[in-house]
C-alpha cells in the first residue's frame, strides 16, 4: 500500500484541529486520529485491486542504437471498480525509457493502452524489469500497490554508423563489373557473356573464335568472381574493451564488420561471423544464398568485451575446424597489441595463411597519435616518446604480419570501416579472394 500527499495534508490539518480543539478534552486527538485512519482504510478498501490488474506487453522488439522504439502495455481492469492508477514501466537506466510513469483511469472491465518510448544508449538486449501499478482509492488518499512481471525485451542493434559509406563503396564495386572491365582484366574476373562489339570496347577483349562463327564482331564481357566466402572474426578479448574515443574497440570493429558484410552481400559473396575470446561467443554460418547481414547484426548485438586474454591457438583451431574446407577470406578484427600478437597469433599464423587469405584490421587510437605530436615541456616530450614507442611496436607487428602474407588495415575509428571496405574491394579486383 501507499499513501498520497493529500493524506499527509489532511493529517497536518488534523494537527491544527487538535491543537485548537484540545481544551475540549483528550478525546479530540483520538477522534481525529480515528477519523483519519478510517478515511485511509475506507479509501484503501475502495481502491481497485492492483494485484488483479492484467497486463499485456507489446511493441517493438528491436531498435537501432540512437533511435526510438515504442513499447506498449495494455492495462486491463477485471475488477468491478474503476482503476485510477499510476503505472511505472520500469527499464534499466540505459534504456532511457520515458515517460517514467503513466497516470490512467480504466473503468471496470475495460482496458487502456500506455506507450513507453525507449531510446537505448547501450547496445544489447534491454529487458523490462517490472511494471508497478499503484491503484488509488476514490478519495485519492491511499493506494494499493503491486509489482508485476511483464517480460518484454528490446534488442538495441549496433548503430552501423558506417552505413553512409555503403553507396560510395557499392559504386566502386560496380566499376569492377563487366561494363567497366577495361581497367582490370585478369585472374580477378570471370567470363560472363558474349555481346556485340560497340565502338570504344577494348579490342583485346574481342573473342575471335565467336566472331568467326558469326557475321559481327563479338566481345567477351567479364564480371568479378562471385560466391567467395568471407569469415569476419571479432576478437572479444580484453583488448576489445579499450575505449577509443568514447566507444569500445569492439563496437568500432562491429561497425567495420557490418559495412564489409553489407558490401560483400551486394557483391554476391557469402559472409559468416565468428566472435571469439576463449570460447565461441557468437557464430553465424551462411546457409546457401541470401544475405546474412540481418543474422550477423542479431548475433553481434549482445556481444560484450570479456576481460580475458584471447586464446589465439583456440581461435585458429576454430577457424580451421569449421566445415567449409574451401579457401576463404578471414577478416580478423582485433588490436595490433605487440605482446598479445607475438605470443598469440604470430606463431600460429602460418597454419591459417596456408589455407586462407587473412586480413587483419585494427582500430588505431587517435589519442596516441595526438600524444606523439605533443611538444613543449619535458612531460609532453616523454609522452610523445611513449606514444612513438607504441606506434613503433604497431609498425613492427604490421611489418611482421605482412611478411606472413597477411593484409593489414590499421586506421582510426572514423576511417576503419571504409578502409576495410577498400581493402576488400582491392582484393576482389586483384582476384585474390
Amino acid at each position, binding site marked *: 500500500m501507499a499513501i498520497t500527499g493529500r493524506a499527509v495534508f489532511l493529517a497536518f490539518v488534523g494537527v491544527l484541529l487538535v491543537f485548537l480543539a484540545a481544551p475540549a478534552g483528550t478525546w479530540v486527538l483520538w477522534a481525529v486520529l480515528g477519523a483519519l485512519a478510517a478515511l485511509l482504510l475506507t479509501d484503501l478498501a475502495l481502491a481497485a485491486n492492483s494485484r488483479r490488474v492484467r497486463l499485456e506487453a507489446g511493441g517493438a522488439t528491436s531498435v537501432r542504437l540512437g533511435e526510438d522504439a515504442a513499447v506498449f502495455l495494455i492495462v486491463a481492469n477485471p475488477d468491478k471498480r474503476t482503476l485510477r492508477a499510476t503505472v511505472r514501466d520500469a527499464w534499466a537506466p540505459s534504456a532511457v525509457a520515458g515517460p517514467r510513469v503513466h497516470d490512467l483511469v480504466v473503468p471496470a472491465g475495460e482496458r487502456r493502452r500506455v506507450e513507453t518510448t525507449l531510446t537505448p544508449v547501450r547496445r544489447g538486449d534491454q529487458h523490462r524489469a517490472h511494471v508497478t501499478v499503484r491503484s488509488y482509492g476514490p478519495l485519492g488518499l491511499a493506494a494499493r500497490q503491486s509489482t508485476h512481471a511483464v517480460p518484454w525485451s528490446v534488442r538495441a542493434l549496433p548503430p552501423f554508423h558506417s552505413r553512409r559509406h555503403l553507396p560510395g563503396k557499392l559504386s566502386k564495386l560496380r566499376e569492377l563489373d563487366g561494363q567497366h572491365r577495361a581497367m582490370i582484366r585478369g585472374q580477378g574476373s570471370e567470363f560472363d557473356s558474349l555481346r556485340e562489339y560497340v565502338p570504344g570496347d577494348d579490342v583485346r577483349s574481342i573473342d575471335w573464335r565467336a566472331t568467326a562463327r558469326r557475321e559481327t564482331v563479338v566481345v567477351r564481357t567479364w564480371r568479378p568472381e562471385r560466391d567467395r566466402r568471407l569469415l569476419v572474426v571479432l576478437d572479444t578479448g580484453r583488448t576489445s574493451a579499450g575505449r577509443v574515443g568514447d566507444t569500445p574497440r569492439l563496437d568500432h570493429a562491429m561497425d567495420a564488420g557490418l559495412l564489409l558484410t553489407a558490401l560483400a552481400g551486394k557483391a554476391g559473396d557469402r559472409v559468416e561471423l565468428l566472435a571469439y575470446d576463449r570460447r565461441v561467443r557468437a557464430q553465424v554460418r551462411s546457409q546457401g544464398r541470401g544475405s546474412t547481414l540481418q543474422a550477423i547484426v542479431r548475433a553481434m548485438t549482445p556481444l560484450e568485451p570479456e576481460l580475458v586474454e584471447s586464446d589465439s591457438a583456440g581461435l585458429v583451431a576454430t577457424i580451421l575446424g569449421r566445415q567449409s574446407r574451401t579457401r576463404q577470406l578471414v577478416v580478423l578484427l582485433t588490436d595490433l597489441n605487440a605482446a598479445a600478437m607475438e605470443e598469440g597469433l604470430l606463431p600460429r599464423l602460418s597454419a591459417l595463411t596456408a589455407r586462407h587469405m587473412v586480413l587483419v584490421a585494427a582500430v588505431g587510437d587517435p589519442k596516441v597519435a595526438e*600524444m606523439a605530436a605533443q611538444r613543449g615541456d619535458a612531460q609532453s*616530450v616523454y609522452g610523445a616518446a*611513449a606514444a612513438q614507442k607504441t606506434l613503433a611496436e604497431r609498425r613492427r607487428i604490421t611489418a611482421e604480419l605482412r611478411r606472413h602474407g597477411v593484409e593489414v588495415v590499421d586506421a582510426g575509428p572514423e576511417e576503419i570501416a571504409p578502409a576495410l571496405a577498400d581493402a576488400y574491394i582491392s582484393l576482389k579486383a586483384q582476384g585474390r579472394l
Partner: protein
Amino acid sequence: MSTDTTGAAQSPPTDPPAGSSAVSVGVAGVWRRVRGPLAFLVGASVLGVLVSLNAVPSPIGDLDPEGANPDGSRALVQILRDDFDVPVTIARDTDEAVAAAGADSVLVLVKSHRLTAGELDRLAGLPGDRLLVQPTTQAIKALAPGVEVTGRGDDRDVLSPECTLEAARTAGDARTGGELYSGASTACYPAEGGSALVRTDSGDATVTILGSGDPMRNRFLAYEGNAALMINLLAGDGVVWFLPDVPSTGGASDPVDLLHPGFLPGAGMLLAALLLLALWRGRRLGPLVAERLPVVVRASETTEGRARLYTARRARPNAAEALRSGALSSVRPRLGLGTETAPEAVVEAVSQRSPRDPEQIRALLYGGPSDPYTADDTALVRLADELDALDREVRE
C-alpha cells in the same frame, strides 16, 4: 513470447488467469511473513505480564524500613518482628506517626530534615520513648532540648561504648561514627568532640540520639555490635518507624501546566502526521532496477602509463630512442629507403635535402657514444623540436 502476448491483447478481456502476474508480496503474503515474529512478540508480552502480575515493587531508599537495598533497614525490621515479636508500625507521614505512637512504644525518627517545625512540635507532644537518628538541630531543639551537636567524626569509625548504658555496654563496639553530641545525661561511644550516642530523660520517657544511621543499615547490620546495639535499643513493646516522605513541592507549578492545553495532543497528532509524511515520501513506485555496467578502459592507457614511467624515471635514453625511431620511420619512406638501410646511407640522403651538416644530422638521428640530447630534459625537448624541423626539411 512476443507474438503470444500481442495476440492475447486482441482477444476480449476475460477473468484473470489463476496465476497473477504480480511478483510483489500481497496482503496475504505480508501476513504470512510477519505472523511468526508477531506471535512471538505477543507471547513474550503475555508471559511478561503474567510473571509481573504478583510482584509488588519493594520501596528503595536510605533507612527505609521496607527497603531491601544495601542502605535500607528492612533486615533490622524483620529481625525485630520475627525474632523478638516486636510489633513494628511503619509511618510515612506525621499523621500516621501520631496515630501509631503509644506510651510504651519507641518512635524511631529518621530523615528528620523532611519535617517542618509544626510537625516536630506535634511529635514532641507524643508519649513514649524516641530514637532520633542523625537529627537536625531543629529536631534536637524540639525533641531533646539541652543536647547540642558538638562535633563530627568519621562515618567509618567503629567506636567503643565506654559507658554504663546497658544497651550499649552489652553490644560492644559499633559503627556509630558520625555526628557527636554533648549535653545529655548519658553519653556513649565517645570520640573527639562528643559522643555518638546520647540519651536524655524527659520525665517518663527517654530520648536517644544516634549520630549515624549505619548500625541500622542492611549492609552493616552483620558487623561489630551493630545489630545488638539496635536490638537492645528497640526491643520492647512496640516500634513506630517514622520515615517522613519527601514533602511535596506544594505551590510550585508543574512546567506542563504552563503549556497550551493543545500542545501535548497537538504534538501527538504532529507525530502521526510526520509518520504519514515519511510513508508518503519513502514509498517507492516499485523496486529499483539494477544494471550491469560495462568496464571503462581507455585504449591509450598503457601508452599513458609508459609516459608517466618515463617521466618518473627521467628515462632520457629510452625516450630519445623512441623519438628518433619515430622520426626515422617518417623520413625513410620519403627518401625511398627501406627499414634495413644503414645509418650512413640515411644520413647522406637526408643531407641532400637539408641544409644541416651531416655530422649534425647523424647526431640528431642516431645519437652516438656521447649523446648531447640526453644530458637533461631541456636537451630532450630540443631533440624533439629539431627532429620535427628535420622532418619538415625532408618533406619540402
